[in-house]
């Protein structure tokens, strides 16, 4: 309908899929995507190749800004939302601009999680969530000899093996919290350790990071529970992702880990929806709250949320893509447990 303004926060797979659906379902409405990254919609999973120089920035791009112009979608890049006010249907941007919406979709994805126990030395930890992080890693890459990887989430395996392939020494610490947010059995951990070992990664079982000291520019000592003191050039923290919804605290929306939504991806406030890695929905089949992981899930939920925003009534339904393959090992990821 004319005069309506659909605003999407987040320029990833969920946001883009939603924008497509909104644009075709409401040809006269305004559609705006707001992203805090200055880079266009890109393939996050290619970042691990990017950091070792296996591909360039141009290879990461899914859609250039031209696409949005052609489809009459206003794409705001590099603009951060600082808060939203559902009562006045307004979002507020960091550069002091406010935008009114008719319907709002929050799909801002996840951000690398650093557990509070590591806060004391978090400035020495490197994470890889967005292109900004990846650029830093890529720049440091030629000078890295030895890298310590802790946490052990799904991304860490791929990163570890890629680094080993390009000749870096990789020390991988696996403890019972590895694979977060999944809880996998000891046998599966063993399988992963062996797979890593075959790719040239040194695996330390039942070991965890307890401290990091900086010994020089980009030089660290990583201390471990098992008594280790590893001299290295980088400590990579791969503790999984948490929804990047800090900016929604105090807005009146129900938040747990992510933005709580019902089966139709509506939040606790009229007119505000959420989809993708930032949304949390109760799954009766899992008897638990669930946050999606992965690109296809995000697309699916983004489209679904958009349809609901347009007035349809569609439920999120059963679990979508639920099996990941990592280094030849199949992992069932259809649920997300609390940590």
């Amino acid at each position, binding site marked *: 309908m004319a005069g309506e303004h659909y605003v999407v926060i987040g320029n990833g797979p969920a946001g883009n899929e939603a924008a497509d659906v909104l644009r075709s379902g409401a040809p006269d409405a305004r559609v705006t995507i707001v992203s805090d990254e*200055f880079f266009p919609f890109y393939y996050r999973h290619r970042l691990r190749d990017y950091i070792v120089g296996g591909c360039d920035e141009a290879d990461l791009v899914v859609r250039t800004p031209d696409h949005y112009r052609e489809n009459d979608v206003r794409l705001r890049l*590099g*603009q951060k939302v600082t808060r939203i006010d559902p009562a006045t249907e307004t979002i507020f941007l960091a*550069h*002091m*601009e*406010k935008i*009114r919406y008719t319907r709002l979709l929050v799909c801002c994805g996840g951000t690398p999680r650093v557990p509070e126990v590591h806060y004391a030395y978090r400035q020495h930890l490197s994470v890889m969530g967005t292109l900004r992080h990846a650029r830093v890693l890529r720049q440091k890459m030629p000078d890295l000899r030895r890298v310590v990887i802790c946490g052990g989430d799904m991304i860490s395996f791929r990163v570890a093996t890629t680094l080993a392939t390009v000749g870096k020494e990789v020390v991988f610490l696996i403890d019972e919290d590895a694979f977060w947010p999944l809880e996998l059995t000891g046998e599966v951990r063993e399988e992963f350790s062996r797979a890593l070992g075959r790719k040239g990664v040194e695996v330390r079982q039942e070991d965890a990071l307890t401290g990091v000291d900086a010994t020089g520019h980009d030089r660290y000592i990583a201390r471990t529970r098992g008594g280790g003191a590893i001299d290295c050039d980088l400590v990579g923290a791969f503790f999984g992702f948490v929804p990047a919804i800090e900016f929604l605290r105090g807005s009146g929306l129900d938040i747990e880990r992510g933005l709580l939504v019902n089966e139709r991806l509506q939040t606790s406030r009229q007119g505000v929806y959420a989809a993708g890695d930032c949304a949390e929905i109760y799954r009766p089949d899992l008897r638990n709250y669930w946050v999606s992981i992965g690109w296809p899930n995000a697309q699916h939920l983004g489209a679904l949320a958009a349809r609901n925003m347009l007035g349809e009534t569609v439920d999120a339904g059963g679990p979508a893509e639920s099996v990941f393959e990592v280094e030849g090992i199949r992992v069932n990821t259809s649920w997300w447990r609390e940590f």
Partner: protein
Amino acid sequence: MAVSETTGPASSDVVIKICGAAGDGSIAAGQILNLAAAGMGYHVMNFDSFPAEIRGFGKSVAHSRISVERVLTPGTMGDCLVALDDPHSITELASLRGNGIVIYDSRPADYHEEDQAVAGWLQPGMIGYGVPLRDLSAEATKGAKSRNIVALGVVSWLFGLDADGFRWAIGKRFGGKSETVRETNIAAFNLGWECAARELDKADPIDFGNVALARVENVSIVSGNEAAAQGCIDAGLRLYAGYPITPATKIMEVLGRKLPATGGVVVQTEDEISAIGHVVGGGFAGKRCATATSGPGLCLMVECINLGVMAEVPAVIIDCQRGGPSTGLPTKTEQSDLNIAIFGASGESPRPVLAPTNVEECYALVLKAFEVAEAFQTPVIVLFDFFLSSRMEDVVWSREAADRFGVYEDFLATPTPEPYARYAITETGVSPRAYPGMPELVHPITGLEHDEHGLPNYSGPVHTRMQRKRQRKLETLLARWPAPEVVGPEGDLEVGIVSWGSTVGAAKNAIKRLSESGMRAGGIFPRLMWPLAGDALREFSARCGMLLVAETNSSGQYAALVEQATHRDVLRVCEAAAMPLPTAAIEAAALKVHG
């Protein structure tokens, strides 16, 4: 004036635009920026744009190009936009480079409405730096609106333009004001600088390395109008009579301040007719006199100029061309008064017309205009345009340098009585001239056709002889005046570009670019528009595969003269688009036809 030892800064050329609403101080900030840069030895070219409304909410943009080497044009696209007013700055984004920089206020009093924030319109590749301009301004000057000065602090830190140079410039700019004003403005600058240093992550490559190329204490950054005023003073102007009109008014303002100290007089007349009457009258009395006006004023002056031609009285008229016709576009540039300058009169009324191409020539040619007017006993029209009148450059000028346009003192012959013939026919056409009051050299002077003694005479042969005499004066001038400037390689050219006035800068840039891309390109650029340098034009035209004329009027006024002289069709790159002709337009036209 010491020259600092330096390995050379990384950057050598930057275009900075400061955009605000009227009252935001964008122009003043631009002036300080220019002064600071020039004081550090950089070249500066600046062309501000003002809202058409004299008071009101229009957009004001100070546009400065700072460079290590002297440049010919102020540049069309900006490298950096300082946004003092968001809504206006949004409209200015179109003239910012794709990888350009925007400096904006990160903490305005309240949130901008949707789409009214300049930071919301940044394209990928652009870099935005948000600084709390308003808050820092309130802290520094506690009342005065100094966001513009705070922004200069940010610019200084960001681009490595030495902060001390700015502080010096601020001190100089506010030199006449109280200590407090200077201090608080420097405080505002410092706050902007410190905030930038503390909080900004520099992500752009522009860096002048915080070095001064030289310390120039007596730097002059002047506009064409200011240069013209100085030319008048150095020429010994005794009377300026004029009527204010945009964009010539500045000349009168400057002379009003400076001329009385030299013993000269400035009179604001009731209209342009009176003004030119004063000038011709004063010229008759033997004094150097001048007026400045714009197109509509020149129209009113035509009859009296005609009198000057007929009575062979010297006068200098500066016409600062603007968009026409009629009241036209008072604050926009155009080069459409060539026709009226050359032909505007009843009867055959030949007079020299000069057109400077940059600010230094504004000084030199105005200075020369007085010499030429006196030597050849004729009104001389000097054509400026809004662009030249208001654009500012750092200049070094001198009387000696102006002599490259020739010296004409030898035409000043002392008359002898027995009996005295004021309009004696000579080979050069120039008659020895007596001034009123000289004993035994009394003579009549009239707008009627006259004989050699000045007595009215309407016979055919006398008229013919006098016409030819007056025409011959110009031919003599043409023979003495240096040939038009020619640039480019010797021999045949694929493209020849003819241009005049302020468009010459863009034309020279275009020739450089075409040459770099492999084309044989050259140009010819006259300063003496009339009499027409026909021989030079024909000689140049003969070498050119294609002849192109670039000027900012829509019919091609000089192009028509070139065609007449060279008997060939020329390609007109003629646009009256209220702005200077961009280099790219000339280059594109040449490539289109040739390439």
